[in-house]
């Protein structure tokens, strides 16, 4: 896990997620794994800022777009990639795949691929934290989760029972101009603001620009500390603008892999990508800012990127080399072993 407020660590953590996701897309295009999947490109700063605030007693709950959350929490990219490929080297020996990836030892006990499905579970983990007097829960979910009863019911319990949980709504369908202004109305949720829903249940809320890594770091630093000290829930809407590679049903890399040069004068051929990079890419915007401020040199960033690329290339090799589980493993772990008699 990263050290808080260290620009190098923050950049490295974001680059690792981006380079991991690119390899994931390339493996899919290469036919190395079946099924649909979701990548976290364009939202990296959120998971990195949130997980920087967490310790070993804390829990993280995620959804089908979990790769970034898990990497920021400290999961090993080689075991994650093996899991995505359904290999025996994966965290669940291939049983979860990309959609349900969980790492118990890092406080990520279960990942639901149902919209809003993790939120009742996260609320229960917060109940356990309260009972045990240690730990908080960070629950990541998308804007569509607010259309589910599970989300509303979970927030009722969190508010009623006064539980230490931070609800992190990653709203990744916001036009750039609306990220600071707000007043963005979803086409399928008739709330003027997403934060109106938790506010009605007396949960304190905030909204933050998901493309601004510094704002995110400040926001999560404060909110996690409040949840920890007061033991009550908070809700934050992180307003992100969707990366153009996420617009098709299957993610794809517009203009190939992300280039560091795009942050420093060059521009990709595709106009939609160029616009997104200039206005909405949290990684690029932070790099420009930190290099201009002298926090990191371009050479240092280059070195961090090379290290991230090498690490993810290694993860791909590990995953491709890992064997598939034996067919008889399909019958294992249906139920946990236990004593039969009292």
């Amino acid at each position, binding site marked *: 896990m990263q050290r808080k407020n260290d620009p190098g660590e923050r950049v490295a953590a974001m680059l690792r997620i981006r380079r991991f996701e690119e390899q994931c897309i390339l493996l899919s295009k290469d036919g190395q794994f079946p099924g649909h999947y979701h990548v976290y490109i364009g939202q990296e700063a959120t998971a990195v800022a949130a997980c920087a605030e967490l310790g070993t007693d804390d*829990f993280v709950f995620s959804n089908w777009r979990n790769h970034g959350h898990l990497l920021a929490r400290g999961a090993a990219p080689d075991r994650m990639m093996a899991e995505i490929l359904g290999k025996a080297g*994966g*965290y*669940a*020996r*291939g*049983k*979860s795949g990309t959609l*349900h990836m*969980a*790492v*118990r*030892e890092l406080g990520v*006990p*279960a990942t*639901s691929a*149902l919209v809003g*499905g993790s*939120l*009742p*579970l*996260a*609320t*229960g*983990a*917060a*109940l*356990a*934290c309260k*009972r*045990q007097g240690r730990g908080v829960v960070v629950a990541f979910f998308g804007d569509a989760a607010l259309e589910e*009863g*599970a989300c509303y*019911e*979970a927030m*009722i*319990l969190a508010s*009623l*029972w006064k539980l230490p949980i931070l609800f992190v709504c990653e709203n990744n369908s916001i036009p750039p101009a609306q990220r600071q202004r707000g007043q963005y109305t979803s086409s399928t949720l008739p709330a003027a603001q997403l934060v109106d829903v938790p506010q009605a249940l007396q949960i304190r809320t905030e909204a933050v620009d998901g493309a601004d890594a510094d704002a995110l770091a400040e926001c999560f630093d404060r909110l996690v500390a409040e949840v920890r000290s007061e033991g009550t829930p908070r809700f934050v809407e992180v307003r992100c603008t969707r990366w153009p590679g996420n617009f098709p049903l299957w993610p794809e890399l517009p203009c190939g892999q992300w280039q560091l040069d795009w942050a420093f004068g060059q521009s990709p051929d595709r106009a939609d990508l160029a616009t997104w990079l200039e206005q909405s890419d949290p990684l690029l915007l932070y790099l420009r800012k930190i290099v201009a401020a002298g926090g990191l040199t371009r050479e240092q960033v280059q070195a961090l990127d090379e290290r991230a690329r090498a690490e993810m290339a290694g993860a791909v090799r590990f995953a491709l080399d890992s064997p598939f589980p034996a067919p008889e493993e399909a019958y*294992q*772990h*249906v*139920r*946990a*072993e*236990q*004593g*039969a*008699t*009292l």
Partner: protein
Amino acid sequence: MKISFAQGVAMAISESLAADSRLLLIGNGFVGLNMEARALLEPALREFADRILVAPVSELALAGAGIGAAMAGQRAAVDLSTGSFIFQAFAQVVNEAANVHYMSGGQTTAPVTFCSLAGMRSAGAAQHSHRIQAMLGQVPGLQVLVPGGADDAYHMLKWALLQSQNPTVFISHALLLGETGELTPGAPMLPVGKARIRREGRDLSIIASSITVPRALEAAQSLERDHGFSVEVVDLRSIAPLDRDTVLKSVAKTGRAVIADECHRSFGVAAEIAATLAEEGLAYLKAPVCRVAVPDVPVPFSPPLEAELTVTADKIVAGALKVLNAGSTMRRPV
């Protein structure tokens, strides 16, 4: 000592709260409207008030909170009240609790117990009368307990609350709450996953569970008294795990089987037992098996309509007589 089914439930909850400080109760119904059992439960609810959570009518999140707390080091019992209400929580029970151990490759366990007061209880009509065990039997990963007597209610619930490492649905039946049985304090429990021979016999096996256990015992008595047949009653005790071996052994002895079950006839518990006998026990059968189950229609309100569908001792007797008189027409397997 003689206790009622509801008292067994109340004792199991009280003793479990005292035995394990990790145990949380989400909701506080558990024993329905049985006043004796409520009085029995009351001292524990007071003593352990900090571990009993006020429950809004949010079944989905209550179930999920129980699962999440259990995954994070607690143990939890969630009161889902009337059996039909589990549908409000189905997404969490079926798609989260049941899957988490498997989906995580064995990393995560969820020792949570969902308590459900199911069954045709008189005047429940279509939306308060569901028997949910057959549906839940289709969900690998869940344990589905269907005790048919006070002794098992006590032992099996206590096992679920204190020892089980897996998500469990504990299914009581509104009309079983007042049934009494003998409980020997401190006696070991027949392990969960083992069926119990409630009554031994030679001519016919009645396979029952939950509310059909006392009705099968009543039917067995009248078959002996009025018709001279010696009838065995097998109490399944749990639908998952299902003790097929004890069923097959009983039918190997008697050669005839009636399956009495309050689920709907099609795809129900009785259908699964019948399939087991067809696949693994055909050589034992001297006559076709008979399912005495609820017809495939919703449960109506009007008392005579509900009675028309209810699995009674008389209907079990009628099914038994059909099987007992059918021997000569059964062709032996070649």
